[in-house]
């Protein structure tokens, strides 16, 4: 399997990448780790004319701890996040999520920015950034802006990113108590259901991936939660549940409730 022809440009700075994106628009794709983009290009499901490689742009692959935040550069690989002490201590829910993500080789190449921008409805990170209320830092021709995770995912493979914008970092609040649980699709090992629960005071914030065509906050669960995991019954309230040959909507909805309950109890 070989991608259709394209031109490859290695960007040396964020502004160069942004300018290239602006210039080429729909014809261009950003390449970071390539773990989602390259398989799609090989199957010729995706055929950009220009591939802009942002790997190696200085400052995009660091994990920083500030007072009450953890900032993960968009080019950080999953392995970097997995091995980060800062993440382990201050954002353990991300550590848990990365453990379930892909495999050794995919984690070594794939990046958090790439995964979020790709917005696969069964990817793991979306549930976590939603529950954590992280902010997606982006830069475009009009400068930098911060997009709340809750505003970021708009549909299957669709995000709030403008055509000329790239993700530069993800800003997480430190999370003292959080859990990520995943029920694997047995072939792809993506999430049939992935649930992130963040405890805050007596309340919870619940992010769910894999269930709907867009990852979502289970607000009805959050409202109903009163220290009682039965709130999980509301996991798919108001949600159109996806269906495929691994999990039809009835089973997937059931599974969402089970996994939310378990995550609430963890």
């Amino acid at each position, binding site marked *: *399997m*070989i*991608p*259709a*022809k*394209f*031109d*490859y440009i*290695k960007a040396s700075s964020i502004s160069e990448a942004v300018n290239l994106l602006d210039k080429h628009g729909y014809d261009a794709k950003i*390449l970071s780790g*390539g*773990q989602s983009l*390259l*398989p799609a*290009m*090989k*199957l010729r499901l995706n055929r950009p004319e220009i*591939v802009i*490689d942002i*790997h190696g742009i200085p400052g995009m692959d660091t994990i920083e701890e500030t007072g009450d935040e953890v900032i993960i550069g968009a080019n950080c690989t999953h*392995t970097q996040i997995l*091995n980060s002490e800062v993440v382990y201590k201050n954002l353990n829910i991300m550590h848990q999520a990365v453990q379930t993500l*892909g*495999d*050794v*080789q*995919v984690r*070594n*190449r794939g990046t958090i920015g790439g995964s979020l921008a790709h917005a696969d409805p069964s990817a793991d990170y979306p549930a976590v950034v939603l529950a954590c209320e992280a902010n997606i830092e982006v830069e475009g021709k009009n400068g930098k802006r911060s997009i709340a995770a809750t505003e970021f995912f708009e549909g299957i493979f669709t995000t709030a990113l403008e055509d000329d914008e790239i993700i530069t970092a993800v800003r997480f609040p430190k999370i003292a108590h959080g859990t990520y649980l995943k029920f694997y699709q047995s072939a*792809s*090992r993506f999430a049939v259901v992935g649930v992130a629960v963040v405890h805050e005071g007596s309340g919870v914030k619940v992010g769910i991936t894999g269930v709907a065509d867009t990852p979502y906050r289970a607000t009805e669960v959050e409202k109903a939660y009163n220290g009682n995991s039965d709130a999980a019954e509301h996991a798919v309230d108001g949600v159109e549940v996806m269906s495929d040959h691994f999990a039809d909507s009835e089973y997937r909805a059931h599974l969402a409730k089970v996994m939310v309950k378990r995550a609430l109890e963890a």
Partner: protein
Amino acid sequence: MNVTITVNGKTYTHDIEPRISLVQYLRETLDLTGTHIGCDTSGCGACTVSVNGEAVKSCTMLAVQADGCEVTTIEGMAQNGEMHPIQAAFKEKHGLQCGFCTPGMVMVAADILKNHPNPSEEEIRHGLKGNFCRCTGYHNIVKSIQLAAETLNE
């Protein structure tokens, strides 16, 4: 475009099309056919090589992305004709049958053992998740990696 890649200690410069994957470059340009292609969705791991010390699926990396990188393939594992302890362990424990997935298994085993010098069976199985073997049922691959860990820790 021009890329310079160091493979198994030797540095090469070639003018290649950007769409050529690292595995194609290794197999077609460098004739290093020990790295295999078993699928097209990054699912089987047969193409696993080490790039800058980390296991990657060379079918899901463009050769141009490897510009300036140090790549080790299965051909670079044996030193002075002596098999690497991981290779030797695979032979000792019958961790291979048809041999097709084997290079990828050895290369990912190196990554597993780098991060888990004393791996549990669970850690090994977790680490092998990205590699299919259709012959061994993984039983003897797990045993091989356990033995390799012992040898490397000696």
